[in-house]
């Protein structure tokens, strides 16, 4: 969160229970251009493993995954 990077899409995934945060990121990835990013905020700790695992297995990239004030903030880059 240090450097304010503007994402192509902001996803509010607060309150969603795993695996739904991963599902929502996956559903929305096609709506950003290749090279574009999604900033997703989730509250379920399971997402810290789920979203990176989804990104790796689908060939996308998690630029950052941080815990900020009990929330989990992800920057996900669409690579293909």
């Amino acid at each position, binding site marked *: 969160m240090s450097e304010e990077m503007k994402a192509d899409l902001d996803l509010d995934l607060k309150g969603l229970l*795993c695996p739904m945060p991963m599902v929502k990121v996956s559903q929305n990835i096609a709506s950003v251009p290749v090279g574009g990013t999604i900033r997703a905020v989730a509250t379920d700790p399971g997402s810290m493993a789920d979203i990176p695992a989804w990104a790796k297995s689908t060939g996308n990239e998690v630029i950052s995954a941080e815990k900020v004030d009990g929330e989990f903030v992800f920057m996900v880059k669409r690579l293909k």
Partner: protein
Amino acid sequence: METQQMTTLAGVLDKKMNRQLKQYLDICARCAICKDACHQYVATQDFKYLPARRAELIRQIYKKYFTKTGEFVPALYEARDPDENLLDELYESAYACTGCRRCMYYCPFSIDTAWILSVAKAILIAAGKGNEMLGQLADAALFKSDNFEMFKDVIVDGFKDIELQVKELTGDPDAEIPVDKQGADILYVALAGAHSILPAAVIFHEAKASWTLSYFEAANYGYFFGDAVKARQIADRFMDEAKRLGVKEVVITECGHAYRVAEIFHEAWSGEKHSFKVRHILEVIDEYITDGRITVRPDAITEPVTYHDPCQVGRNGGIFEQPRNIVCALASDFRDMTPNREQQWCCGGGGGLVAISEMDEFRLKSGTIKAEQIKATGARIIASPCENCRLQMEGLNDSMELGIEVKAIMDLVLEAMPLAGSSAKVTPTD
């Protein structure tokens, strides 16, 4: 499409062939008694959702490729090649099915349409037309276990966060969420979400159970996707863990399909008998209450409560009474839906549908019957031990303004347990 490719696709059917499937394909009389059993057909009146029609698409391939009469007189059976058109129809019919098997219940020959559709999905996957989202979720789950070292710390950190809440709720600074504990009695397999871990951890703590939490989630998108190999590998993650830790039983969280996969499918898939029991968490909680290992206040919930039998837990899993026992032990006004138990209507959220956004509108529409059933009880709280059911019923609650609260049974138990912790009112999903 090339003839060669169509023959290969038909070959998938041959590979999946077994006695039950062959009989289902041979004996269906197309009487269509199943039409009013399917919530999707009843809600949409769309032919492609009629159970016998869904199975008929596979039968058309079977007749053409695997029966002499169908080969010589295809017109008699409307036998077809698995061409693009048929595959498109198959996709719509197969991936929409929630696998509730209500049609099988009413069929005079007990034809398992969902089983036939599992072959449909295998054919679609072989043609590169499997549902993308479900495939991705299955791959993500396997990626996590194949590269476990990469995720282990993050997963354990997540557990530690939840552990703090367990300490707070139980008022016991030594309360813990044991992980990787050799020789524990129970391996508890939760979902990735904290909501499925916290209440169980508190209940196990209060019951002084010897337990350990699995690193892996019970959810199995390989099963919904229709890839039997991936489905098995996903379940293997915690089954191997159970073997390694030498537990007496694997306890599956409040999730429908994961329970059926673990209890009914896994032994058959792996060809190996489990050295442990597999139980649903509600069987365990019911036992704890009966044996007095945990106590619940009998009037903890005074608002009317109803219970939805998830298809994979009830009709397809055999757990009908334990959840009702639990709810009746803590709620003063329990009202069953009509029909219920083995005749219960599917809520519409199964089969992985909640993860497929293109199906959102259709899915909610298919839940009309369930919404009406819930309304008729006048209940304010609906409890159900399946994540997909709860997601669907929350969707129905919003779209049809039912004004209900959707809860897991464990949530209710937690509310009803006298706990020493200061913030016992905190509900786990907050």
